[in-house]
């Protein structure tokens, strides 16, 4: 009975992480805004910044991986491999999220010392959608940290904590 709830909990967490990563990808891809600045027209797309492209690619990889692992049978020998892959995927998520947040912070506040002006004042809806995508990425990351512990628990015997 305990094992069944553990297995179900793991599946629910993984499905939620899949949804969060997919939501982050979709939110960032559909963010596109045109703003006219006197005679100049500025189109803000996510692909203008390399960090956002990396974020989209990393979260797409994570969502495909989560979807595939959802169907892994319980007694398969690949669960040891899933532990390593979960660690790699968590690192991918943290690195993409932190790179996108660093660049988005420059876009929002600018950098007075480098002479970079913030762009969020001109394209506010773009900025809001990017913020939403980053929040979804953060949710996926937190879920994956829990999933890492769950998959270690799956591989390691549940009696690990018993002192011999």
């Amino acid at each position, binding site marked *: 009975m305990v094992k069944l709830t553990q297995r179900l909990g793991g599946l629910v967490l993984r499905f939620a992480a899949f949804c969060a990563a997919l939501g982050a990808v979709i939110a960032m891809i559909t963010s596109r805004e045109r703003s006219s600045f006197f005679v100049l027209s500025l189109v803000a797309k996510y692909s203008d910044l390399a*960090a956002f492209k990396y974020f989209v690619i990393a979260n797409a990889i994570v969502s495909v991986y989560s979807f595939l692992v959802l169907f892994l049978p319980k007694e398969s020998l690949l669960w040891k491999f899933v532990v390593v892959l979960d660690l790699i995927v968590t690192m991918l998520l943290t690195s993409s999220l*932190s790179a996108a947040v660093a*660049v988005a912070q420059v876009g929002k506040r600018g950098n007075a010392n*480098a002479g970079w002006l913030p762009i969020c004042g001109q394209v506010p809806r773009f900025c809001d959608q990017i913020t939403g995508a980053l929040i979804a990425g953060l949710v996926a990351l937190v879920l994956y940290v829990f999933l890492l512990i769950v998959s270690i628990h799956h591989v390691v015997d549940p009696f*690990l904590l018993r002192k011999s």
Partner: protein
Amino acid sequence: MAGGKTVLAGGNTKSWKLLLGLRIFAFMATLAAAIVMALNKETKTLVVATIGTVPIKATLTAKFQHTPAFVFFVIANVMASFHNLLMIALQIFSPKLEHKGLHVLSIAILDMLNATLVSAAANAAVFVAELGKNGNKHAKWNKVCDRFATYCDHGAGALIAAFAGVILMILVSGVSISRLLFNSNKFSTTKAPATATDVP
């Protein structure tokens, strides 16, 4: 042998030595990255504008504190090198304590968390540094590296050290996880093994 108290990490097993060596290299790499970035500073006097025939000069400084991503980089690398130092000290001075399950589990989890921390810091810094090196014409951000070449070079060195630290931390996490799996396999068998313990 009565009881199941096999000592996982005696001083001489192969995985113990491998883990210690990897940790020492990871400590050196993250510490080098933190120190090089923390001492990164360049001051230059530049001509900012020309009014008539009089050039107006301004003294500009490029410091790592100007960019929040670099501040996070320094802090994260300091935390990771401190973690490595702590683990090295733990491994050298108490090799016999490691057979308890919760101990090995917490070391593995802490290693994984620090690996992700260093990877996040290195990636954030590298993307912001790429913005500084190439600029971004869509957002009309000028590049910084053509004027502050030494600052950019030192920053690049710190980033390379941090990425080496990332790879080493991944290896350290891998070895810790394999010690965890080995430790749990030993405890889940009902008979104590008769031969000496050595990690495959």
